[in-house]
């Protein structure tokens, strides 16, 4: 297990910069599901040269931004149960249809957070193994979406690497992650390891290797 002294943790990209990198990699016309929390930032960085359709798994395709205070409708919420809006061209559907969009392979990209990602593309992000177990739609999303993007800090606050040989936490899915966007690098999961597509200029490849379990290559 890699565990860096927290005083020696290098500063990487901030979350907005990571969100912008993901936004730039989503192509025009893509149907995208953004996970609750940090991945929601991605929608703020979509350039004007493309239109992205957002799916919320509770039954909304064509989700828009948060409403003004006086326009809140408690029947119009997202998967995080927060009030949202619907854009022109949007639609509602029931849960089985909404998850058919996911499970049937119609969602082009999902972006979600992680507790651990293995070099084989296994993802753990739903359970620490303690407390009340609650999974929501995460297992459906990673099994069904065409591309699974993970947006995460490379190291935990304690300096433990989230990129591991084998996940120690309960899996959300096995061999499901396509790409990892961390604060240190953008990495594609391949048959032989983490392939570095882009490296933070503050970070050397040697440092990246020292904070990543499994094969890292450029």
């Amino acid at each position, binding site marked *: 297990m890699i565990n860096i002294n927290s005083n020696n943790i290098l500063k990487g990209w901030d979350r907005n910069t990571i969100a912008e990198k993901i936004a730039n990699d989503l192509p025009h016309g893509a149907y995208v599901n953004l996970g609750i929390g940090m991945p929601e930032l991605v929608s703020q960085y979509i350039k004007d040269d493309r239109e992205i359709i957002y799916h919320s798994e509770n039954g909304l395709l064509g989700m828009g931004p948060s409403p003004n205070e006086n326009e809140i409708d408690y029947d119009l919420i997202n998967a995080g149960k927060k009030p949202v809006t619907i854009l022109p061209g949007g639609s509602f559907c029931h849960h*089985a249809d909404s998850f058919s969009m996911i499970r049937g392979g119609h969602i082009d990209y999902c972006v979600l957070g992680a507790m651990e990602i293995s070099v084989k593309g296994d993802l753990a992000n739903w359970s620490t193994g303690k407390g*009340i177990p609650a999974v929501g*739609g995460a297992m459906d999303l990673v099994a069904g979406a065409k591309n699974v993007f993970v947006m995460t800090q490379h190291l935990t606050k304690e300096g433990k690497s989230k990129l591991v040989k084998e996940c120690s936490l309960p899996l959300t*899915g096995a061999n499901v992650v396509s790409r990892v966007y961390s604060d240190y690098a953008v990495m594609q999961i391949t048959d032989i390891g983490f392939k570095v597509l882009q490296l933070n200029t503050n970070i050397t490849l040697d440092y990246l290797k020292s904070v990543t379990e499994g094969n890292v290559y450029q």
Partner: protein
Amino acid sequence: MQINKVKEKMTDLLSDVFDGATIMVGGFGEAGSPIELLHGLIDHGAKNLTIIANNAGNGNVGLGALIGQKQVKKVICSFPRSPKGITFADQYNKGEIELEVVPQGTLAERIRAAGAGIPGFYTATAVGTPLAEGKEEKIFNGKKYILEEALHADFALIKAEVSDRYGNLVYNKTARNFNPIMSMAAKNTLVQAKEIVQPNFTNPEHVITPGIFVQKIIEVKEPIIETIAIEEGLTYP
């Protein structure tokens, strides 16, 4: 004589509910959650219920209140954590209530399958995870899937926006969620609708749940909004 599934009294709507029943409860969070029917179920007093829903209640209204009254022995759901999901958490931590966690899409599809007469299906969701343990595996085209079985219920508690006397239902925005598939999966589908209209007022092109799936309906003109109820400290009973 005309078909009329509309009941005036909550006691008539819930008269067939029995101890030990399996009950589906529509809604995703508060949207589409039949709070007045759940309060009716508290007044009815049925016990040892198995609840199938996406969540396990929030605050002390609706499903949270039903659990608070210790009428529920088991919850089958995808996400039993809510910011104020105190009643479930309290009983779960004491070992007083059973929990079966099901991935949300698998939950929806198991419910849909029951309504469509499909006893089980294979899915890639949860393969390789703790939630696949003990489930039959099968390989299709080189990829591994697990067998999931249909989820049936004795009753479904449904919230709709509009109904007619046949039970043709229209929902409001994302309050649709689990309601149409639960209507199909239960033996007895009991509906609260904000408005009951004449049959020619429901456009046949816009009906989401056709009346064949509905047994009884009651009008609840101004249903409780969970967020506001919790903010105001409402509890039931």
